[in-house]
């Protein structure tokens, strides 16, 4: 059993890493960034949504919103714990930052992050009321499901396992948002909602990252990615458009 194999070629051939001690430096950096992006997005998403709970029409809607806040926070903790294995101070991490902070509604930041955290750009926009939160949660929820399916195969086993546990719960969040959307359509018709779809559609689309990301090949070789951003985005566009169609809505032009 004395064959030598570099970690790089092991990973390129689909190998799995299992603990911080054999994670190479560049891999570690990308893995930490991937985890920080997820944790920050979940914490920021939960924090933003928490303010919306009381605007839910009726008890059931409020329970659904509260549950989403609770579970997204739990998901952040699951992944933050893995960052902790790498030495991150998890308590300080969770508390050091105002996760509710948002930019202006019309801020034009494209795919860039703010200067303070790694949340996906879409989580920097403020939610304006219940319908707005439902539409955002539906569109982003569908995106998260696809992104998590992709990340359930990452080559860092503890993280892949965490994402596999998180995926069905996030899938449920997207379903709850879809149910909420249908309730709104029934109550008020699609008109006001189309405006919200038009607002969130490009912002959620941007969360898939750059189409010709040069980093992709590097991440693929490390087993941290499989499917190009453009493919994932195309799947989301199809997937979300199909459901919007059922609601009498359409994607932003």
């Amino acid at each position, binding site marked *: 059993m004395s064959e030598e194999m570099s970690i790089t070629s092991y990973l390129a051939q689909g190998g799995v890493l299992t603990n911080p001690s054999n994670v190479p430096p560049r891999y*570690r950096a990308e893995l930490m960034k991937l985890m920080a992006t997820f944790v920050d997005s979940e914490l920021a998403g939960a924090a933003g949504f928490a303010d919306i709970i009381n605007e839910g029409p009726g008890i059931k809607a409020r329970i659904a919103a509260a549950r989403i806040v609770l579970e997204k926070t739990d998901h952040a903790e699951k992944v933050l714990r893995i960052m902790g294995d790498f030495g991150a101070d998890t308590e300080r991490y969770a508390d050091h930052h105002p996760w509710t902070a948002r930019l202006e509604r019309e801020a034009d930041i494209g795919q860039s992050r703010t200067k303070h955290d790694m949340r996906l750009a879409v989580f920097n926009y403020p939610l304006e009321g219940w319908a707005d939160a439902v539409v955002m949660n539906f569109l982003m929820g569908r995106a998260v499901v696809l992104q998590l399916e992709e990340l359930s195969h990452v080559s860092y*086993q503890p993280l892949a396992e965490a994402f596999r546990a998180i995926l069905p719960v996030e899938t449920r969040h997207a379903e709850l948002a879809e149910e909420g959307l249908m309730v709104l359509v029934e109550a008020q018709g699609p008109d006001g909602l189309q405006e919200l779809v038009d607002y969130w559609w490009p912002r959620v689309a941007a969360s898939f990252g750059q189409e010709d990301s040069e980093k992709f090949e590097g991440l693929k070789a490390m087993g941290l990615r499989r499917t190009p951003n453009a493919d994932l985005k195309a799947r989301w566009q199809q997937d979300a458009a199909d459901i919007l169609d059922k609601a009498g809505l359409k994607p932003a032009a």
Partner: protein
Amino acid sequence: MARFHDLEVTDVRKTIRDAVVVTLKPVNGAAEAFDFTQGQYLTFRRDFDGEELRRSYSICAGKDEGILQVGIKRVDGGAFSTWANTELKAGDTLQAMAPMGTFFTPLDGTAEKHYLGFAGGSGITPVLSILKTTLAEEPKSSFTLVYANKGVNTIMFREELEDLKNLYMGRFNVIHVLESDAQEIDLFTGLVTEEKCAQLFEHWIDIENVDTAFICGPEPMMLGIAAALRSAGLDDSQIKFELFASAQPGRAKRKAAATDAASSANQTKAAITLDGATQTIEMGKDMTLLDAALENAMDAPYACKAGVCSTCRCKVLEGEVEMVANHALEDYEVEKGYVLSCQAYPVTDNVVVDYDQ
């Protein structure tokens, strides 16, 4: 932040020529922190010639045995493993972090499962912990171990595995695959490759009824086995890996030492704040801020020491430092004055840095 606890070495026993089993007892009330789960590992730290090394070794004891034991195989040129194999003795004290790792599945006393384990050489240690615990806690489950070694005399825990076979007759089976020693059955000679696994799945292992497979061994062996398991229909969630790469990451050499250490031009006064306390120390400009803090008994955070994980990040409040590598901090963080202390050498005669910001 990583916390180390003292552990008393109560026994050091040779298993084969170049591997020891070390029995440990937590002291100073740390017992609770070491209530491990089968398959987990411990990370030890020790100073070698003034430099701290951290090494991880898997626990080989079963949960029900009531002891804490790790197996340490000597690696050529490995400072820690050589020391453990030649000098470590009962009565010594080791320092380790609480058990870590997720190389296990939850057990259920009523379950009736079939587990398959693959171990290569010293990769047996966590697999042994898993199989002992599983067989004891799930009386209806069975476990098949495929254990790859160079030859008969390099098999760690050979006798213990024989005893377990007798103890759990009909529920525990071991297939030894030896690289160089011929065996009665040709299939059991050679390397455990994808092809070898496929052959084992034909007649020797009921792969269709396997619930979970555990693999711990060298990289090529893990790849081959995983490929064979996937072809046989197992999905990713049914395959558990544990890897301790033989090639540990290298350590950055210090920059060329200054020739005249007495000259004030090579000395810096550094005020370092950590956990609310500030220490002012004299340090050479050929030393990183992190090493200076560590040498002055400050428990500064770090992990990779390679400028990557950002665990050692601190903020420079006064003075100037130079980072030789930075794979973690974004430009905006650097602009704010953050540096990776493991990569940062002082430039000015005075620096003030803070780990708390």
